[in-house]
C-alpha cells in the first residue's frame, strides 16, 4: 500500500481536478474531458508498450488512430447497395489483383537468389500491377462516387454494431504495423521515427483522397451509437423519474406546478446528455481496465522481462538467444493495435469520421508528450500522462486567458498588445505542452510516475 502511495495520490488529484471542473464549469464538460482522457489513456498505453517496454519510437500514431476510425465506419455504416452494384465488382477484382501481386512478389523474392534481374522483375511486376489495377478500378470508383454524391458516394460498411469496430480497428492497425515493421524496424531508432511519421501521413492522404472508401474529406456523419440517444431518453419514463428522484430536493422547493414542470424538463435535457456521456465513460473504462490488467500481466511476465532486457541491451539479449527482430515486430504490432482500438473508440464517441481532422501534432506528438510526462515504461504513469496532458490541453485556453488578463491588467482593454494576446490564447496550449515536456525531460526524465521494476 505504502509504495503505491504516489500512484494513488496522483490519481486522486487528477480525479479531484475533473470533479472541480464538474462543479465549477459543468458536468457535461467534465465528462467529455474524462472520456477523452480515457481514450488518450488507451493511446498512451499503446505508445508506452512500444517505447517504454521496447524502446521503439513510433511517430505514426496518427495513422493507426485513423485506421481505427476507418474501421468504425466500415463496420457500422449500412452498406450502400447501389454503390456495390455500380462498382463493387471492380473494387473486389482490384483487391484480388493486389493480393495476387503481393503473392507473386513474395514468391519471386523467396525462390530466386538476389540479383539484378530479380530486382528488375519485381519492379516490373509492381509497376505493371499498379497500371492494371488503376485501369480496372477507375471506372468502378467513378461509378461508386456518382451514386448520390451528396449523401453517400461510397461503398458503405457492413451495418454491424459499432462496438465490433474496436476489435476490427485493432486488427487494421496491427496489419499496417506488420507491414511497416517488416520494412522499417531494421532501421535505427530515429530513422524509424521519421519513417513512421511519413507512413502515417500517407495513410491520412489515402483516407482523405479515396472517396469511394470513406467519402474522403466529405466526412461520414451520424454513425451508430452504442449508447442511447438523448432525444429518446428525454421521452422515456424511467429516465424522467430518475432525474426527478435525483433532484427531488431542488424540485420540491418550487411550488408552482407549471414552473416545476419546466424546471424538470430542463433538468431532463441536461441529464440526458450527462447520462449518454456516462454510458461512454463506462464502456471506455472497461476497455482501459482490461488493457491495464493485460499490459500489467505482460510487464511482469517472463516475456516482459525479456522485452526489458532487449530494450536495455539489445546485443546481450541477442547473445542470450532471444530473437530481437521478431520480438520488436511483435511489440510494434501489439502497441499499434491498441492505438487502433483508441482510434475506433474516438470515432464511436464523436459519431462522425472526419479525415481532415487528423493532424500529427494532436494525434502523434501530443500522445508522445503524454507518455513522456506520465512515465514511460509504467502503465499507470502512461495513463496518468494521458489524463494530465489532455486536461491541460483543454483547460489551457481558460488558464491562458486568465494569465493574459492578469499580466496585462494595467493595459487598456483596446490596447493592441492585449487584443493580440487574447486572440492568440488558443496557442498557449502549445507553449504549455512544449515547456512541460522540456521541464519534465530535464528534471524528471522518467516522468511523473517513474518505471519501477519489482522482482517478485
Amino acid at each position: 500500500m505504502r509504495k503505491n502511495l504516489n500512484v494513488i495520490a496522483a490519481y486522486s488529484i487528477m480525479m479531484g481536478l475533473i470533479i472541480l471542473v464538474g462543479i465549477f464549469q459543468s458536468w457535461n464538460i467534465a465528462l467529455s474531458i474524462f472520456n477523452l482522457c480515457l481514450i488518450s489513456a488507451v493511446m498512451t498505453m499503446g505508445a508506452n508498450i512500444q517505447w517504454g517496454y521496447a524502446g521503439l519510437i513510433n511517430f505514426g500514431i496518427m495513422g493507426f488512430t485513423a485506421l481505427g476510425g476507418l474501421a468504425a465506419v466500415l463496420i457500422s455504416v449500412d452498406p450502400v447497395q447501389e454503390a456495390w452494384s455500380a462498382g463493387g465488382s471492380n473494387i473486389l477484382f482490384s483487391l484480388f489483383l493486389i493480393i495476387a501481386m503481393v503473392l507473386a512478389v513474395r514468391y519471386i523474392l523467396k525462390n530466386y537468389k538476389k540479383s539484378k534481374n530479380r530486382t528488375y522483375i519485381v519492379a516490373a511486376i509492381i509497376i505493371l500491377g499498379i497500371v492494371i489495377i488503376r485501369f480496372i478500378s477507375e471506372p468502378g470508383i467513378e461509378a461508386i462516387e456518382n451514386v448520390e454524391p451528396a449523401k453517400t458516394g461510397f461503398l458503405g460498411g457492413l451495418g454491424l454494431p459499432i462496438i465490433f469496430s474496436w476489435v476490427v480497428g485493432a486488427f487494421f492497425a496491427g496489419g499496417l504495423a506488420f507491414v511497416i515493421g517488416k520494412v522499417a524496424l531494421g532501421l535505427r531508432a530515429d530513422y524509424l521515427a521519421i519513417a513512421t511519421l511519413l507512413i502515417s501521413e500517407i495513410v491520412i492522404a489515402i483516407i482523405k483522397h479515396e472517396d469511394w472508401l470513406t467519402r474522403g474529406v466529405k466526412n461520414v456523419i451520424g454513425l451508430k451509437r452504442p449508447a442511447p440517444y438523448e432525444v429518446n431518453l428525454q421521452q422515456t419514463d424511467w429516465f424522467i423519474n430518475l432525474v426527478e428522484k435525483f433532484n427531488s430536493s431542488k424540485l420540491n422547493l418550487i411550488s408552482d406546478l407549471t414552473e416545476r414542470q419546466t424546471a424538470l424538463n430542463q433538468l431532463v435535457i441536461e441529464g440526458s446528455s450527462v447520462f449518454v456521456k456516462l454510458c461512454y465513460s463506462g464502456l471506455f473504462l472497461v476497455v482501459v481496465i482490461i488493457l491495464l490488467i493485460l499490459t500489467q500481466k505482460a510487464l511482469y511476465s517472463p516475456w516482459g522481462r525479456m522485452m526489458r532486457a532487449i530494450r536495455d541491451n539489445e546485443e546481450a539479449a541477442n547473445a542470450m538467444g532471444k530473437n530481437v527482430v521478431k520480438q520488436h515486430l511483435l511489440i510494434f504490432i501489439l502497441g499499434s493495435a491498441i492505438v487502433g482500438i483508441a482510434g475506433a473508440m474516438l470515432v464511436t464517441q464523436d459519431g462522425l469520421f472526419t479525415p481532415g481532422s487528423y493532424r500529427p501534432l494532436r494525434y502523434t506528438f501530443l500522445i508522445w508528450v503524454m507518455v513522456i510526462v506520465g512515465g514511460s515504461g509504467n502503465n499507470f504513469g502512461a495513463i496518468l500522462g494521458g489524463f494530465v496532458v489532455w486536461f491541460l490541453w483543454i483547460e489551457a485556453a481558460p488558464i491562458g486567458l486568465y494569465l493574459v488578463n492578469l499580466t496585462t491588467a494595467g493595459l487598456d482593454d483596446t490596447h493592441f498588445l492585449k487584443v493580440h494576446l487574447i486572440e492568440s490564447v488558443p496557442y498557449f496550449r502549445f507553449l504549455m505542452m512544449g515547456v512541460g515536456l522540456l521541464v519534465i525531460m530535464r528534471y524528471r526524465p522518467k516522468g511523473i510516475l517513474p518505471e519501477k521494476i519489482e522482482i517478485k
Partner: protein
Amino acid sequence: MVNMDFVNAIILLLNYIFVPALAYGSQLALGAIFVTLIYGILRFANFATGDMMSFGTMFVILFTWYFQTVGISLGVFPTALLAIPFAIIFMVGYMLIIDKFVFKYYRTKKSPPVQLAMVSIGVMFVTQAVVRIIIGPSDRRFFDGEKFLIKAGEFKEMTGLNEGLAIKSTQVITIIVTLILVSTLFWFLNKTKTGKSMRAYSDNEDLALLSGIDPKKIVMTTWIIAGILATIGGALYGLDKSFKPFTYFNNMLPIFAAAIVGGIGNPFGAFLGGYVIAFSEILLTYAYRKFFMYVLPESMEPDGLIQLLSTDYKFAVSFSILVIVLLYRPSGIFKGKVL
C-alpha cells in the same frame, strides 16, 4: 508543324515541371543541409526543423513589414531580401539560446540520440507556439517587387509558340541565392580551418577532440550556419509560395526524406537529395495529357489525365523513394553515416 509541336511539348515540361521543381528542390535542399548538419555534428534528428524555418521566416516577414511602412524598398526585387540579414541575427540568437538552455545539457551528458530527438519535439511545440502567438496561424504573402521575369503571354508573342513559359522572379532568386549560399558553404567546409574541424568532428568526435578542436566553437558555428540556412530556406519558400506555419511544419517530411536519401551527415548529398525529392514529387504527380497531345499524332491522343499519382500523394512519393533507398543503400545515395 510536327517540329513545332515538339518544341511546344518541351516548353510545357519546362514550364510546369523543370522550373518549379528546380525552385522547390532548392528550398528543400537548404532545409536538408540544415537537417544533415545538425545530425552530423550534434548527432540527433531535429524534429523542430520545419518550425525553426517558420520562426526565421516570421522575422523576415516582420522586418519586411517594417521596411514597407518606413518606405525602404529594393525596387524590382522583393523587400524580403533586405530583411533576411536582420532576420538571421534574430534566428541565430534564438538558436543559440535554445542550445544553451535545452540541448547543451543533454550533449554534455552524452544522452542517446533518441532522447535528443524527443527534446527537439519539446522545442518544436515551443517554437510553434511562439510563431503562432506572434504572427498567427494564417496564410501570409510578403512578396513585393516585380513578379515575373518572363510572362507566359510575352513569351508566346516573342516566339510564336502555343505554350507560354512563365518564369517567376522568385524562382530565379531562389535558385541563384541557393547556388551562392551552397557554394559558400562548401567552400567554408572544405577550405577554412573551422570548416575542416567541423568535418573532422562529424567524422570522429573523439579523434577530433584529441587533436585539440574546441567542441564549443564547433557547436556554435553549426548553430549559426543552421540559422542562416533555416532563415534563407524558409524565406525563399515563403516568397515563392506563401507563409503558413502549418505548411512549414509539414515540409519537415520531404526535407527529412531529402536528407536521408542524400546520405544523412553528408551536406552535398543533402543538397542533391533536395532535387531528387522535388523532381520525383513533381514528375510523378504531373498530369501529362497535354504533353502527349503535342507529342503523339492526333489519332493516338489520350483520354485521361495521364497522371501517375494524384497530387494528394506527394508524401507517398518522397516516402517511397526513402524506402527504396533505405532498402538498397542504407547509407543514402552518397555515402553518409552508415546506420
